[in-house]
């Protein structure tokens, strides 16, 4: 079975199909209707590092569709500490479940698990590698707001060096012909090999240190957290990070349908004053994680979501 390890496993058409299916599942995700498409199926949650949000999102997605979930226990007490290989753990869970969601601190773990498994593997983040379900929920949120993915102006802001979220999202945006502005402090620029890859695949990519100058023409502003630990001292952090914060008053001259996104949790890069503006989409974005994961679970388990074109 083929799972979802990187966004390259999905063509643009596949992406649109999944987003369409997710849209049809919205009432089910909200609990307004019950559609047990995955009754009798079991998801194995293999989380080798704590990520409560992603784990809960997978679990909710499965249960909204009538499926069941088994969880690998706390990593610190389970067999993993006793030195079991990922291969052995996957062999065991593979026998118990119909699909696996994996999160692992080591890069390449998801591809490795897929090679070891009979059932499809959904990559829930592996090291600094890929996190395709996050990218899918980001794309869903963007399309929901703008009605399309093609040709949008998207600003990615904050820590672009270490944030894997923005790495795979930028690739996906370029695939759909979006113009991408990378706004970050010098120290936290997008890795040059990624920028080169984006440009090599025809991407219209601009780098800047001035977030606020980029706001006026943006359709999407995607904020990420800048961590204190990245800087030598607190003063330097305060000086630099201050330029990558949004306040409601910064949004006076932006496009009326511009949206502000954030993978959450946020600290202070988005001021609470933004929450009540029409631009704030980060809470819906978090909710969208459930509905896109529902659509992905159906797809990988070979279950059609009713309501699509025959």
């Amino acid at each position, binding site marked *: 079975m083929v799972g979802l390890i*990187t966004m390259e496993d999905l063509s643009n058409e596949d992406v649109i199909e999944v987003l369409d299916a997710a849209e049809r599942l919205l009432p089910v995700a909200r609990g307004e209707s019950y559609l047990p498409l995955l009754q009798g199926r079991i998801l194995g949650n293999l989380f080798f590092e704590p990520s409560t949000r992603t784990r809960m999102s997978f679990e909710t997605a499965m249960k909204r569709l009538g499926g069941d979930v088994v969880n690998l226990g706390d990593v610190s007490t389970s067999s993993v500490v006793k*030195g079991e290989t990922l291969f052995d753990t996957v062999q065991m869970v593979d026998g118990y479940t119909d699909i696996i969601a994996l999160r692992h601190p*080591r*890069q*390449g773990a998801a591809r490795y698990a897929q*090679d070891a498994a009979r059932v499809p593997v959904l990559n829930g983040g592996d*090291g*600094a590698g890929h996190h395709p379900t996050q990218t899918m929920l980001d794309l869903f949120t963007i399309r929901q707001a703008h009605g399309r993915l093609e040709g949008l102006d998207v600003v990615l802001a904050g820590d672009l060096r270490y944030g894997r979220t923005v790495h795979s999202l930028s690739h996906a945006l370029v695939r759909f012909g979006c113009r991408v502005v990378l706004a970050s402090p010098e120290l936290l620029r997008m890795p040059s090999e990624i920028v080169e890859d984006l440009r090599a695949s025809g991407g219209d990519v601009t780098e800047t240190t001035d977030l606020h100058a980029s706001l006026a023409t943006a359709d999407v502003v995607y904020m990420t957290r800048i961590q204190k630990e990245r800087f030598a001292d607190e003063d330097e952090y305060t000086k630099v990070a201050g330029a990558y914060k949004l306040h409601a008053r910064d949004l006076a001259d932006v496009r009326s349908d511009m949206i502000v996104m954030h993978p959450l949790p946020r600290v202070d890069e988005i001021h609470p004053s933004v929450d009540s503006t029409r631009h704030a989409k980060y809470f819906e974005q978090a909710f969208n994680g459930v509905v896109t994961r529902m659509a992905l679970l159906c797809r990988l388990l070979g279950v059609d979501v009713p309501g699509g074109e025959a």
Partner: protein
Amino acid sequence: MSNESSMRRVTAIRNGTVIDHIPAGGALRVLDLLGLRDGASVPVSLVMNVPSKKLGSKDIIKVEDRELTGDELARLALVAASASVAIIRAYTVAEKREISLGDEVVNVVRCTFSNCITQHPREPLPHRLRVVDRAEVHLRCHYCGRPQDLDALVKNVI
């Protein structure tokens, strides 16, 4: 033949392997890769920067009393895909062996990225590197996707 005269720069060997047409400067990498630099139990002779029609200049290695195996040829493809290998028995070329870099290099070297899943010594699946560009010898790990640096890679022979 110029080829023969350059071969004679080193004494002919009775039995063993001659690796010719190594790109100039590549011989040391080849020795590393074949484990012939430290603790080799057989005589090895090395000629560097010999004029060559094909390559401009080249290196040659002669290994006595040892015939390179298929596995070793696969390793050689990583650093000297243009090399030609002759197996010598009783002073004559008994066999010529082709080297070629395929689409994937399996269980020859391990990924150089420190946080790759394959760094765990007991994980049993094969070490797999995808050949992204054959001419430039660009490789990426099948699992973590990281590009591999050849100089670091030759130190990661399995």
